[in-house]
C-alpha cells in the first residue's frame, strides 16, 4: 500500500502539470491578497484592521481548492486519457488499492498545495499590512483558523476531484463541468436559493474559511466541515465503485 502511494506521488512529481498548478495557486494567492487589501473599506467591504477584513485577506488560501479539484480530476482522467490506467491496474490488479493510494496521494498533495497557498498569502499580506500599520497577529484565533481551514479545504477538494474524475473519466468534460458548476451553476443557486446553496461544496468551503462569521447564509465552520467530508466520501466512493468494475480497454 505504501509502495502504491509512493508511486502515485511520483506520478504527480514527474509531470509538469503539478508544478504548473502550484504556480497558479501561488499566483492566485498573491492576487487574492492584493484584491483583499485594495478593496478593503470600499463599497461595503469591511475596513482594514477588522476581523472580517483579515478573514477575507487570509482566507484566500482557500482558492487553492479550485486547483486541487483540477489536480484530483487530472490525476484520474489523465490515466484514462493517456492509457496509463492499464499499467496501474496491471501492477496492482486489486483496483481498490490503486484508488485508495491515489486518494491518499492527492490528499497529501492537496495539503501541500494548501500550505503553499497559505504561506504565499501570509508572506505577501503580513508585511504589507504591517507597512500600512494594520496590526494583525498571525496567531489571533481567526487568522490561524482561517489559514488552517483553507489548507483543509484544499485537501478536501483534491479528494472530491479524484471522485469526479473517476465518475466522468473524460478529462475535458470533467474539468469544464467542474468549473462551470463551481463558477456558474453554484453561484446562481447560492444567489437564488441560499437555503439550498449553502449546502453546496463551494459555499461549504467558503463557510469553512473566509466568511465564517460574516454571512448568515453560509454554514458554520463545523457544519461546513461535515458537509465537505460527506462530499468527499460520496464522490470518492461512487468513483471508486465505478472504477472497480469498469472494463479497461
Amino acid at each position, binding site marked *: 500500500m505504501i509502495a502504491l502511494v509512493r508511486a502515485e506521488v511520483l506520478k504527480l512529481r514527474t509531470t509538469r502539470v503539478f508544478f504548473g498548478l502550484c504556480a497558479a495557486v501561488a499566483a492566485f494567492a498573491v492576487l487574492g491578497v492584493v484584491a483583499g487589501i485594495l478593496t478593503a473599506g470600499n463599497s461595503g467591504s469591511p475596513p482594514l484592521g477588522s476581523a472580517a477584513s483579515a478573514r477575507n485577506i487570509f482566507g484566500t488560501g482557500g482558492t487553492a481548492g479550485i486547483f486541487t479539484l483540477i489536480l484530483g480530476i487530472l490525476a484520474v482522467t489523465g490515466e484514462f486519457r493517456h492509457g*496509463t490506467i*492499464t*499499467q496501474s*491496474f496491471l501492477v496492482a490488479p486489486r483496483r481498490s488499492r490503486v484508488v485508495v493510494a491515489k486518494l491518499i496521494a492527492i490528499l497529501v498533495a492537496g495539503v501541500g498545495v494548501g500550505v503553499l497557498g497559505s504561506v504565499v498569502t501570509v508572506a505577501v499580506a503580513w508585511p504589507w499590512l504591517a507597512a500600512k500599520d494594520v496590526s494583525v497577529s498571525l496567531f489571533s484565533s481567526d487568522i490561524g483558523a482561517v489559514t488552517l481551514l483553507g489548507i483543509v479545504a484544499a485537501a478536501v477538494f483534491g479528494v472530491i476531484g479524484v471522485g469526479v474524475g473517476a465518475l466522468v473519466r473524460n478529462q475535458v468534460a470533467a474539468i469544464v463541468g467542474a468549473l462551470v458548476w463551481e463558477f456558474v451553476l453554484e453561484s446562481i443557486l447560492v444567489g437564488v436559493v441560499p437555503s439550498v446553496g449553502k449546502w453546496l461544496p463551494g459555499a461549504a468551503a467558503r463557510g469553512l474559511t473566509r466568511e465564517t462569521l460574516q454571512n448568515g447564509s453560509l454554514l458554520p465552520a463545523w457544519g461546513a466541515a461535515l458537509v465537505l467530508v460527506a462530499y468527499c466520501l460520496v464522490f470518492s466512493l461512487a468513483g471508486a465503485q465505478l472504477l472497480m468494475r469498469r*472494463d479497461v*480497454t
Partner: protein
Amino acid sequence: MTDVISVQGLVKRFRSVVAVHELSFDVQSGTVTGFLGPNGAGKTTTLRALLGLVNATSGTATVFGQTYRELQNPSRRIGAALEASGFHPGRKAIDHLKVAAIAAGIPKARAGAALVEVGMEPAADRRVGGFSLGMRQRLALAGALLGQPEVLVLDEPANGLDPEGIHWMRGFLRSYADQGGTVLISSHVLSEVAQTVDHVVIVAGGRLVASSTLAELTDRTSGGAVRLRSEQAGPLRDALVARGAAATLADGDADAVVVTGSEAKDVGRMVADTGVPVFEMTTDGSNLEDVFLQLTASEAGQP
C-alpha cells in the same frame, strides 16, 4: 510441459457486440505462442481479459492456474506490453518505468536496466511525447521486463517497428525463450512472427479457427506446387503426365512446368526417371500467409 496460460470458454460481450466467443486455448511453459488474427478478431480483448483489465462475460482465463487478480505481485511473474499509447506524454521514459517499479515493489535500479535491455538507455531522460511508435513499443516492452517475469504477454509489439526493429524484436524474443521464458505474442501479420513462434493460435471473428504447432500449420501448405524449369518443357510435361503426375505448362514462362499434388522428393525422382534435363526446381507451396488468410477469411466473413 505445463500450461502457463489457460483460456477456457471465454466469452466477452460489449453491449450487443460479441468480441470473443467461446474461445479456448492453452500456452505451454517455455514456448513462444503466436496469437494471430485480423484486426478486430478479439485478440486484444482476450489478452485484456487474461490480465484482469476486462471482465469476461463468461468463461475463464488463468495464469499459473489463478486469475490475474489473484496473483501475488503479478509484475514479477508475468510482464505485459499491451499498447504503445499507454504513456503520459510529459513524463520521461525512466520516470514512467520508475512509477511502475515502485508500485510493484521492484528496485528502482531495474528501471534503468530494463531500458538497457531494450536498447533505449539514450532516451531515458526524454519525455515520451516525442517518441516514435517504435520507441514507445520498446518502452512498453521495458515495462513488461521490469519484474524479470517468466511469462511475457505482448500485444502487437511489432506494430510501428521498422525492419531493423522487427529483426531486433525477433532476436530478443528468441533469446528470452531460449532462457526458458514463455511468450504469448499477438499479431495480425503471420509473417511478422512466423520465424519466432513454436505454436500458433489463430482467431477470427472472436472464434478459434486453429490452434497447433507452427509445423502442423506448415504441413497444411504441402500439396502446394513444385515448379520445374527445363529447356524441354513440353516433353518434360508429357513424360511426367505419363508417370501419373498432375503436370501442366506454366502460363507466361515457356520453360516452366508446374506439378501439383505431389511431394517435391517424388517429383525429383520422377524427373530423374524421365531423363529430361532440368535447370531449376522450386517449391511454391509453403506460403503460410495464404493458409492464414484462408483460415481467417472464412470466419471473418460471418456476421
